[in-house]
Structures are given as structure tokens and as C-alpha cells.
């Protein structure tokens, strides 16, 4: 006896077990000849706490995004709040070493990017991206009146709200409501490795996958029911249809020469590359890397996580380059907050405010943006004032990457960052 309404969707859980015969070296050939980025600090002209009214560098063609969503955005959430000060180390600042008697990274350990800033040694794989001019380092990304609660602060980041404002829909959901993706797209976005839809919460067409996607035999099919019923039922039927549509295209069997690391985020970027290879038409992929809430024994944990991140980013760039998609991909990291400059008594750091983030991609104008944390003028609660409003990063994505008007989505005009090459 069979249950006919059930269609068995191919189990693609085996994709993580694919044999990799590929090379370990990077093949980002198209841009390999690009001269190395200058290590002088290309400070973006973004004033901290400035009113978001001035229009700076908005993209041409605002409001029309005809080709825009063919450009892929990959967001990587460093969940828990990564410690920015040990990610990009101000290795010549004596105050840094005073604030971090146990956790400070010695000057001769950092991967120098400029005459005063260097990466955590575990991030050494990013140096190749930096030397190709394809790594933008965004210093001091935060927002005014910061909130130190994980869930409140990530809600602020996810919804692009002011710190005193409650919004329900994610900033990308609002974007796709105002400027929809083409109907041919399988979804607005894929969420990998998190049940929390984050910036895609509140109505975007989202497909969620584990780090290694599993569409096992489930009874989820493409029923095509159109039922007038409770909103919850409509939501379930819409989700079933989305799963079926994506699963019909996503098999996870693309053969990559790139070797993907066997970490959770390594699996996640492999899944992302499979989505790009097989589904193609999707505007956003959001990946979550867990574990950055390092209140105790930070050194080992953060070192491991940053190492896994750097290797995964390198594999991601390589995999996308194989697909000839790296030049139209923008990868951006984010988190709810950074951590306090003062280390705590447990060999860790507590919830802080602004932090450093990375943007990578074939069209990135590499360099240091924003400003290093002013450790000599910390706020009363011991945190640095932000240098780049996180909504400036979003405005950059909307205006300069997709050509979508950002003012309505972000509730105001925020300066964009010159991190995208024409």
C-alpha cells in the first residue's frame, strides 16, 4: 500500500560524504593579477553617530533592480558576539595590552595588515584575499545607544531598527517586500545552520537547511493546495510548496575541486556552494557560525572558531570561483555585538558593543574601513564608540550591490561605504 500524496525526495545527506579529489590550493584566477591592496588605511568617511540624512555615494539606478538580485549576498552570522579586539589587533596600542593582560595577542603573532592593525593568527588564510585586494575590513561596526542583551541586540541588527525601536520584519524581508525578487527565483534566501531566520524573518520566501542539507523521505510534496483556512495552515502549505520547489533542483551532488573543511561552517559553505550551483537563482544565503559568546577561556575557543571561519571563507571563495560566481558575490560577516575591551577574570570577555567585520568578494575594494577602537576614550561602561553604523553596511548592500533604494527599508538615509568596485 502506498501513500500517493507523499513524494520521496532524494536524500542528499550523502553530500558531506562526497569524495574530494580536488586540489587544496586556491584558484581565484580571474583576479590573481590584481595588484595587492595598499596597506595604508583607506578610512571611509563615515562619521560615528552622524545623522543618516546625507546622501553619499548612492548607486545609480536606484529603485530599479532589474539585474540586481543576480548578485548574490552571503551573510555570515558570528553568533554570540565575536571579540573584535582580538580579531583585528591594534598591535602597537599599549592600552590594548593593558586591557588584555591574559588575552592580548603578541605583536609578533599577528598577521600584519597595516602599520598598526593585524589579524588574529588563526585568520592567516585571509591574507591571500587581502593581498588580492578582495578583503575589506570594517572596523568599529555598531550603532548608537547599544544594547548588551544577545536577543535584543540581534533583533536590532536583524530588523535594522534603532536601539529604542521595535520592528517585526527583518531588513531583508522589508527589502524583498519593496523590491521583490523575480518569480523565477526558488526563494528570496536560504538560511543554513539556524532555525532563526534573522534578517529574513517576517515574510520573506526562505528555505532553511542544516549545515549539511537533508531532504529525507518525508512526505513533503508539492500539493498545490490552495486552501482558505487559518493563517497557520496557509503558512504550512506555503512552506511545503517552497520545499518541494527547491528540493526538485537541489541535490547536493555538484563536484567541486575545492576542498571544504570538515567543520560546521565548512559544511555550511559547501551547502551554500551547492545551492549556488544547483538552485542558482537566489538573492541571499545566510550562514550561522555558533559559539562566539566567549565569557570564559576565550583564547582557545576564539582561535578555533576564527580558524574555521577563515578556512571556510577561503573554501567558499574558491567554490564560488569554480562556479564563476565569485565576481558577483558579496560575503559579509555580522554579529549582535562585539565584546568589552577589558578582559574578565575568567580568561574571557563579556558583552560589548561595536566590533570588526569582514566583506569579501570578487568586486570588493580591499582595505581597512572605519576606524580602530579609541581605547583611550572608552564610554562610561568601558566600550568604544562605533565608527560605522551597521545600517551603513546594509545601505551599501542595498544601494551599491543590488541598486535598491535603501531609505524606505532602513528608515532613513545612511552613508554607503566605498567597498564595492565598479
Amino acid at each position: 500500500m502506498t501513500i500517493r500524496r507523499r513524494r520521496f525526495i532524494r536524500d542528499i545527506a550523502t553530500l558531506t560524504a562526497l569524495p574530494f579529489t580536488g586540489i587544496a590550493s586556491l584558484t581565484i584566477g580571474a583576479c590573481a593579477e590584481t595588484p595587492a591592496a595598499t596597506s595604508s588605511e583607506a578610512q571611509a568617511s563615515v562619521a560615528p553617530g552622524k545623522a543618516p540624512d546625507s546622501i553619499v555615494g548612492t548607486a545609480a539606478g536606484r529603485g530599479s533592480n532589474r539585474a540586481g538580485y543576480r548578485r548574490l549576498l552571503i551573510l555570515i552570522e558570528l553568533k554570540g558576539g565575536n571579540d573584535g579586539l582580538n580579531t583585528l589587533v591594534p598591535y602597537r596600542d599599549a592600552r590594548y595590552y593593558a586591557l588584555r593582560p591574559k588575552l592580548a595577542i603578541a605583536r609578533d603573532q599577528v598577521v600584519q595588515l597595516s602599520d598598526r592593525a593585524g589579524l588574529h593568527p588563526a585568520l592567516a588564510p585571509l591574507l591571500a584575499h587581502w593581498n588580492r585586494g578582495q578583503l575589506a575590513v570594517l572596523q568599529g561596526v555598531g550603532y548608537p545607544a547599544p544594547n548588551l542583551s544577545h536577543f535584543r541586540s540581534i533583533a536590532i541588527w536583524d530588523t535594522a531598527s534603532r536601539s529604542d525601536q521595535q520592528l517585526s520584519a527583518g531588513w531583508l524581508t522589508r527589502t524583498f517586500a519593496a523590491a521583490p525578487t523575480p518569480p523565477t527565483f526558488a526563494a528570496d534566501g536560504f538560511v543554513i545552520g539556524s532555525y532563526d531566520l534573522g534578517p529574513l524573518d517576517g515574510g520573506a520566501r526562505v528555505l532553511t537547511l542544516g549545515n549539511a542539507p537533508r531532504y529525507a523521505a518525508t512526505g513533503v510534496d508539492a500539493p498545490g493546495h490552495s486552501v482558505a483556512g487559518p493563517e497557520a495552515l496557509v503558512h504550512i502549505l506555503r512552506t511545503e510548496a517552497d520545499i518541494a520547489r527547491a528540493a526538485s533542483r537541489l541535490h547536493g551532488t555538484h563536484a567541486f575541486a575545492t576542498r571544504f573543511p570538515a567543520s560546521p561552517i565548512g559544511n555550511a559553505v559547501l551547502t551554500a556552494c551547492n545551492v549556488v550551483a544547483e538552485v542558482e537563482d537566489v538573492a541571499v544565503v545566510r550562514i550561522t557560525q555558533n559559539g562566539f559568546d566567549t565569557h570564559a577561556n576565550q583564547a582557545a575557543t576564539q582561535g578555533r572558531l576564527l580558524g574555521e571561519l577563515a578556512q571556510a571563507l577561503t573554501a567558499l571563495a574558491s567554490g564560488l570561483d569554480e562556479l564563476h560566481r565569485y565576481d558577483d558575490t558579496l560575503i559579509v560577516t555580522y554579529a549582535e555585538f562585539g565584546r568589552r575591551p577589558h578582559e574578565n577574570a575568567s580568561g574571557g570577555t563579556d558583552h560589548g558593543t561595536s566590533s570588526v567585520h569582514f566583506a569579501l568578494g570578487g568586486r570588493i575594494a580591499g582595505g581597512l574601513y572605519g576606524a580602530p577602537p579609541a581605547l583611550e576614550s572608552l564610554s562610561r561602561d568601558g566600550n568604544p564608540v562605533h565608527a560605522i553604523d551597521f545600517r551603513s553596511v546594509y545601505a551599501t548592500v542595498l544601494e551599491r550591490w543590488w541598486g535598491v533604494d535603501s531609505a524606505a527599508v532602513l528608515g532613513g538615509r545612511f552613508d554607503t561605504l566605498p567597498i564595492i568596485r565598479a
Partner: protein
Amino acid sequence: MKAILGVRGAFDADGAIDALLAQPQTATFIVTKLWREFVSPAPDPGEVRRIADAFRASHYEIKVALRALLLSDAFWDAKSRGTLVKSPVELVVGTLRTLAIDAADTRPIVASTARMGEALFAPPNVRGWPGGDAWINSATLVARKAFVARATRMSMPGNAGVAATGGSMPAAAGVGAFEHLLLPLPPVGQGVAEAAAERDSVAVIRAAMLDPVYQLK
């Protein structure tokens, strides 16, 4: 000295709770949450106020609030049926009890609820699980259907339930009896009707539990 809702004092934990309970809004807040859990996603402000008043007058006896809620017309109204999504624990425990599955090892079941987004005693953050429609996304729905499919396939150790009810369906019972017991709303798929046409009660149960409306309460 701390200030909580305008009241200043050297609060300990109990004192802080007293300050919160002094606010009428606290009763409204809790009753609204109970309503969204047990009745529907759209609380009726007048009814919430009535139940909240009784709740507060009882010095916050949860039993009083729940009793008033579960005896309200809204709870029994047909319009409230099938308007809420079962939580993973409700889905899993409800399915196991319905099928009389006695799981000797509960660890795989706990792992199942985690895949559905409800890792026991490990909420995503201090706010807890958002619940409601947020239980359903393309990853959790796959996990939910996979669990129900496994449970109804009798591949679970200890599942004698489906087999025990099996055999040919008594003609008098009809499909309606199963539907009424298993589903809050009429099924939207064709599976139940197809199985019923074959007079196969095991197939009817399985089809009903795999129907999208089984995800609702």
C-alpha cells in the same frame, strides 16, 4: 538601590517579582500568552481583560486563569480549531500517545524535537522559543513529517499501536471517526479519502497524520 517600573528600593529577587506583580499589565500579559498557547493567535481583548481580572484577584493562581480560559466560549468555538501550530513536544508526545508507542529509549525522541527547533531545556536565548507559526520552516517541517512518517511506519521500537488498531475498518465507524480524533480540521490532502476508499484503517490513520492539518491544534 535599584528602580523597577518607577519603584525604588533595595530589591532582592522576590522584591523584584512583587514589583512586577503590582502592575495590572502583568496579568494581561500572562493571560495573553496563555491565550496564544491554548486558544488562538488572536486574543480577544475583552475576554483577556475578564480573565486577567480574575487571575489578578486570585493573587495570580495560574489554575484560576487556565480554568477561566479553558471554559471560555472562545476556547470551544469551532473558529479556534486548527488555528495554532503544535509545538515539537506537543507533536511528538501527542503522536506517541495517540499511537500508544512506548518508547524504551527516549533519546532519539529528544533528538527529534531538537531537529524540529525545540531542543529541550535549551531555548535559543533567554526570551525562549518564539512559537506559533515560527515552529514551521522548511527545515523543521521536514523534520516533523519525517518523525510522523517514522512513527506511523511502525519502525519505532515498541510501536504496537498502529498494528493493534489495524485490520479492516468497521463500516459503521467511517472516516469521520478517525478524522475527528486525529485532525482539528478536515484534511487538505487526498490521502485520507484514498485510504478510506480502500477500507484500510491503518492507511487512514497514517494519511491523516501526514496531512498538513495534523501539524495544527
